[in-house]
Structures are given as C-alpha cells and as structure tokens.
C-alpha cells in the first residue's frame, strides 16, 4: 500500500519534471534572459557572503543558474573561427572546457561588481521563425550613458542558448578570435590550450590567496 503510494508520487514527480523541461524549451529568448538576469542579480544582492567578496560562491551561482543557458561549444567554435576545423575532437573538448572555465570566472567577476543598477529589457525584434536572435538589455546607471548588454542566442533542441555576449558593443567572441588566432599561429592549438589552462590556474591561485587574507 505504502509502496504503491510512493511509486505513484514518484511517477507524478517524473511527469512534472518532464512537463517543466518540456515547457522550458518553449521559453522565448527574451523572457529567458529577463528571468535568469533578475533571479541571479537578486541572489547576488541578497547574499552576504557574495557581498563580502566570496568569489567561489559567485562562481557556483553562475555555474548553477547561468551556465545551462550557454552553448559553450558554439562559443568556442566561433572564437576559434577557421582554426576550429584544424582541431582534433579531443582538442576541441579541452578547448571548450578551458574556455568555459575562463568565461564563467569572468562572468562571476562582472556579477560580483554589480551594485543596484537597473535593467531595461528591450522588446525582441525578430520573427517567430527566427532561430538566431540578439536579445538586448541595457544596464542603466545614473549620470552615465546606459551600457548595452546583448546576448546572441540560437534555438537548439534544448531551448534557446547563448553563443555570444556583447558588452557595450564589444563582442566577446570576436575579441577572443584575435587572441586565439595569434596563439594558434604562434604555438598551435595545443599551445592555446596550454595558455588557457595556465591562465585559469593562475586565477585559481590568486583567488585562493585572496580567500586566505
């Protein structure tokens, strides 16, 4: 009797889970950006540890809330440009992993610097059939020009995913493309992986030191 009850509850939970994940795929990109932005900013503003400078916690928050909405494969491929086709599957995997680590940390630092700015979520200008859109957000701060924060997003089987972030007109993907290009030209794809890894490790160390102080 009890067992059957447990089983039916579990089946119900599974159904609900399927239902929500199915619904998530339907969420329009601008709604998704607004929801995630407000949720994360709220958490950052309220969390005492983060306000006190707990970097690890911000990174965890980004990994939990923001990361699932990014397509790091696309981002890495775009940043690599032509060099992407010269990389082996194993190299591609490592590149994506290291680039992801670097971007998550940068994103976390940007979030940690957040202080009561307001957001203006612009109406999406696209056709319903579009599979590639630019979601525009503006960060408003008194006395200064608003900063634009745009997300290039593509429709995937798993919902809308971010493949580029454009801050004040500066596309991260375009910016990294030159850097990656130089590295690959100088020391090959493996050289790029090595320097990304070294960069991530150095940041990890300096965070650990800052934590001790």
């Amino acid at each position, binding site marked *: 009797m009890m067992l059957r009850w447990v089983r039916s509850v579990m089946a119900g939970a599974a159904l609900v889970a399927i239902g929500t994940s199915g619904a998530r795929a339907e969420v329009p990109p601008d709604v998704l950006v607004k929801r995630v932005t407000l949720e994360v900013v709220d958490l950052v503003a309220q969390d005492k540890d983060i306000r006190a400078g707990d970097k690890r916690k911000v990174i965890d928050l980004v990994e939990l809330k923001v990361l699932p909405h990014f397509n790091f494969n*696309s981002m890495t*491929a*775009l940043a690599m*440009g*032509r060099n992407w*086709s*010269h990389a082996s599957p194993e190299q591609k995997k490592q590149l994506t992993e290291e680039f992801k680590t*670097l971007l998550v*940390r*940068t994103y976390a*630092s*940007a979030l940690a*610097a957040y202080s009561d700015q307001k957001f203006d979520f612009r109406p999406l200008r696209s056709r319903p059939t579009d599979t*590639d859109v*630019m979601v525009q957000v503006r960060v408003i701060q*008194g*006395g*200064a*020009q*608003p900063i*634009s924060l745009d997300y*290039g997003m*593509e429709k995937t089987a798993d919902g809308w995913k971010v*493949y*580029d972030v454009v801050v*004040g*007109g*500066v*596309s991260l*993907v*375009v*910016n990294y*493309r*030159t*850097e990656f*290009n*130089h*590295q690959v*030209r100088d020391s090959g794809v493996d050289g790029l992986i090595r*320097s*990304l890894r070294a*960069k991530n490790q150095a*940041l990890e160390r300096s965070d650990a030191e800052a934590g001790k102080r």
Partner: protein
Amino acid sequence: MTLPYPRAGLRGRLKRLALVLVLAGASGCATVGEADPRDPFEGLNRAVYAFNDGVDEIIAKPVATAYVTVVPVPVRDRVRNFFGNIADLLIGANNLLQGKLGDAGNDWARFVFNTTFGLFGIHDVATEMGFEKHNEDFGQTFGRWGVGNGPYIVLPFLGPSTLRDTVGTVLDIRVDPVGNHNETRERNALVALRLTSQRADLLDAGKLLEEAALDKYLFTRDAYLQRRRSLIYDGSPPRERIPESRLEPPEVSPRAPAARQASVSGNYAPRVPANYAQVMAALERARK
C-alpha cells in the same frame, strides 16, 4: 588633502617601469613580422601600451583606488555628474555636426536642466525627466562622416586610439571647457579630479581585463576598435553575421597571410551605407 599614497618604493617602481619600457621596446621590435593591417605599428604601440600600464600602476590606479576608498558613493556620483554635465555641451555640438538634431536638442536640454535644477550639474535630474545621456566626441563625428579608422595608435598617457580618433581627441582637448578654464590652479585641480573620477569608474573593468585577457594588448585593442564602431553607430552597428562563419568551408590550402588578415580586418571597417544621408534626413522629417 593627503591621499594614502605609497611614497616609499616609488623610486623602485620607476626603475621597474624603465626596465619594462626597455624590454617592451626590444620585444616590440621583434614582434613586427606579421602585422595586422589594422595595426601596422604594433611594435611601437606595444611599447607605449607597456609605458601607459606602468604609469597607471604607479599613479592613476593608486590614486583612483584611494579615491574610491576615501570618498563615499554619493559624493563620487556628484563629481561624475558635474563633469558629465559640462561634457553634454560638446556632446550636443557633435550630435549637431552629425545631423542628429533631436539628439543635440536632448543633450542641450540636459545641460539646461542639470545646470539649473541639478545645481550646476551635480544632480542628474535630466535622466529622470527622460533625457538620456549620450556618448559623442569628434572622433565619432568624423566616423559618422565616413572617415575610416586609419592605423591603430596607442597614445602616451591617453591610451588606445586610431589616427582618426587622435585628430578627434586633439579637437576634444582644444575645445574642452574645463581645460580652457582661465584660472590655472582651479583648472589643474578640476582636470586632476576629472581624471581621477574617470579612472575610478574603470577600476572594475580593469580587473575584468586582467582576468579575461590572454594578451592584454590584443584584448584592449580589439575591444577599443569594436567599441568605437558601436559608438559611431550609436549602439546599433549593422550586425555581423557571426554564425555564418561557422558554415565556412574548412580551409584546405593555407592562404596567403595577407588575404586571411584582410578577412579579419573586414569586421571592423565602419562603412556608412551609401544612402545614409537620405535615411537620416527621412528619419528627422518623420520625427518632426
């Protein structure tokens, strides 16, 4: 006013700066091999960049950090507003030169309201009234008129620029109301305060740059060129279809470096469409 400014070790820092300069100069000469067509003076630019970075570490960043530590946020907001208000005069003039009459009117209305109701500009009441702050300068005006970037140049002390923007900056400085203030001591104090306030606003961005960049010079250069392009088009430049590059066929035979570089530089050339003047005129008419 005494700032908690580390006097001890200044000489050591200067020595290090000199060393950095020499090294950068040497390595700079070595890197001039495969020049990016946007950046033909990369070697020299890298040396000046290192010099600026050194000056920043020794003077600008410590002063800005002290300013942020000592001066509370509301006061810093007022300082930023005060100088922002003065800047609105020339922002309006540049919008006028670019034929954006509505924007120019907006900027001068900002100046009028902020100077009066905002008590000489220390309160940005105009933003709350719906007059948005703009970002314009002579470099952008030239860009709007169709003048290309020219080579990328890192100016000593002033930082990233291009040939076009350098000419713009010279004009900006020539007509700067603060810099043209008659009383020398007041002028110097105001210029120093403005620099401090502007540098303080960039502290967070500086930290991000340290974290994000593999090569700070390249990252700064590309960010500058992208940013300027976006500003010239007032935040909505014709979109680069990035995803299409994914569809590019894999490069079979290595092309000549020049051809490859050209495709990269093509991303940045700010081209004003041929019918730009007509479209802008039509927009102005529609607005009235």
